[in-house]
């Protein structure tokens, strides 16, 4: 699979899902979508599609929607979507022309907020609330991206052969958690704690998780020094570690 395709899958399935957490944890975003009752479909030719379902002050991001979308944003190619994420292209609205006001005025305010949290700097990370939200998003992005890379990235595909029957959970001690399970020929990612995880990578604190996930700390040092705890099938953690490092190759 080519770079643009994988990158677009990461944008669709690993980045956009962060809106769920954004509207849950960020007061500004929460206020923005309070009265939204709308379904937006992102459809990318030869890459896939995803629905952003806003209702009752919440957002859920799914590959399938129980209802038809109100707006369809079409992208002619994976590269087209990637350009939009770089701010260099616009989607083609296939449905919802009457909602142009929403698309051009309201929705961009939400994506700006998403961008604010996904592009940290040292100053922003000093804020406790910011670092918490950024860490939740980075943690979730990592495992949703891991799924895509295990399915499509050449090194990920190799690693996928070593994690048959796996269930790996990553969490912050007494904090956010996310886990990935191998199911049949694919993987499923779930936010929250697994009941009986088979492999665990636990960060001692939000700060450690943030440093680790942003490549400021190597895994071996972090684990040996006790900043990060691993247990269970650590061979699976070992197998996916180089794959997780590849997320930055696509999303940095």
């Amino acid at each position, binding site marked *: 699979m080519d770079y643009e395709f994988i990158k677009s899958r990461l944008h669709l399935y690993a980045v956009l899902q962060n809106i769920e957490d954004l509207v849950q944890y960020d007061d500004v975003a929460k206020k923005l979508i309070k009265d939204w009752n709308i379904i937006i479909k992102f459809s990318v030719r030869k890459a896939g599609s995803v629905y952003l379902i806003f209702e009752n002050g919440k957002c859920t991001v799914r590959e399938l929607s129980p209802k038809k979308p109100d707006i369809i944003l079409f992208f002619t190619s994976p590269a087209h979507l990637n350009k939009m994420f770089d701010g260099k292209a616009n989607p083609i609205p296939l449905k919802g022309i009457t909602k142009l006001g929403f698309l051009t005025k309201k929705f961009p305010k939400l994506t700006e907020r998403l961008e604010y949290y996904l592009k940290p700097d040292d100053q922003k990370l000093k804020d406790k609330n910011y670092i918490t939200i950024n860490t939740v998003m980075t943690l979730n992005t990592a495992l949703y991206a891991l799924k895509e890379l295990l399915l499509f990235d050449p090194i990920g595909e*190799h690693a996928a052969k070593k994690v048959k029957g796996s269930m790996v959970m990553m969490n912050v001690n007494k904090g956010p958690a996310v886990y990935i399970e191998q199911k049949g020929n694919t993987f499923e990612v779930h936010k929250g704690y697994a009941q009986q995880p088979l492999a665990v990578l636990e960060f001692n604190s939000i700060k450690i998780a943030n440093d680790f996930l942003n490549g400021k700390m*190597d895994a071996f*040092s972090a684990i*040996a*020094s*006790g900043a990060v705890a691993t*247990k*269970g099938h650590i061979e699976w953690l070992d197998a996916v570690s180089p*794959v997780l490092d590849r997320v930055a190759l696509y999303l940095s």
Partner: protein
Amino acid sequence: MKVEAKGIKYSVSSKSKSKTYTYTKSQKLFQRALKVIPCGIPGHFSPAPFVPPTMYPFYAERSKGSHFWDIDGNEFIDYMCAYGPIVLGYNHPQVEKAAQEQNSKGNCMTAPGKIMVELAEYLTDTIAMADWAFFAKNGGDVTNLAVMIARAATGRKKIVMIKGGYHGVAPWMQGYGHYGVIEEDVANIIDIEWNNIKQFEEAIAANPGAIAGFIATPYHHPTFADSEFPADGYWQRIRELCTQHGIVLIIDDVRCGFRLDIRGSAEYFGFKPDLACYCKAIANGHPISALVGVDALKTVAAKVFYTGSYWYQAVPMAASLATLKELRRLNAPVLMNKIGKKLFEGVKKICASYGYDFKVTGAYSMPYVRITNDPSNMLHQEWCAECTARGAYFTSHHNWFVCAAVSDKDIQKTWSIADDVCKLLKKKYGDKF
């Protein structure tokens, strides 16, 4: 409870006797190390696979016999044996005497010492299939040389190896996906499953006249899974296929070597490889490895240019000769398996009395062990960590090693620790597992 195993009777009191260790100095030194050494302790000595690392010692101070002491002064019965090299016990008197005597005469010199020839003669006399010997430093040096010789001898590129097999750290050995390994490094490697003759036949059929060598360990001992012995007739069929198709048969005896059979592990399993790689057990901790081979490959081996700055050191060769003589005198592989059987069958009984299934696979001299009650391995990891923190050094990954110096007293103490830890875990988890 009582445990009885050939000549040893053991009973455990109802009170826990062992105290747990602390590692303040190890942790402090590790923090210093992190500043100047990548990940503090790199490679297979990294504490990262320990679960949790904080219950293991990071730095050793000294060692003797079957024990080592860490820099916090904690004493351990060592069931990792420096990950294999210690076979007679630390600081073995005959070995160290031979090394010191050679050192007083010369070590790293402008020409090899006489000892190199003496060692080659003794090694080829000991290992049944060996007609010649070539010396290097690490196991990976000689597994790599073996592959080069196979390619030089056949004029072919491809190498068949076993999935999950370990032959060192060169890129082709690590496999694609590991840091720093590119697709081209493994372009000529064909991975097949252990004990799967059909896959080897298919690989030969799919690559006619292209396979230079087949490399595997005598039995399969992956780092994170149970060990597996060869199925009946496996090696004999592999030998037939290699001979039939002109493929060089390479046995990586680096880990098993002299822990199964003093004549080499191929003898133990009843076949004759073309090349065999040795390292860990041949010098009881002194740095040396050896590739041995059949006469038909000697000329090609002579043509492959392969060397290193310290490969002609005489001291490790003297240590190796003394080690091999002692291994032969003791028939150490038989002895280590006897010790291991007594020890681990005893632990198995202790664990069983608490409802824990202590599964031992591979040879008793280097078993892969796990408590199977918890599919996540977490119970096993906790058991190993608690034993280690009481003085029986057990890792929860990788196979363990038993050296010839393990005494009945060591076994008794290990049983006592195992019992204490089982009791602790039973109290903690009840019948959850």
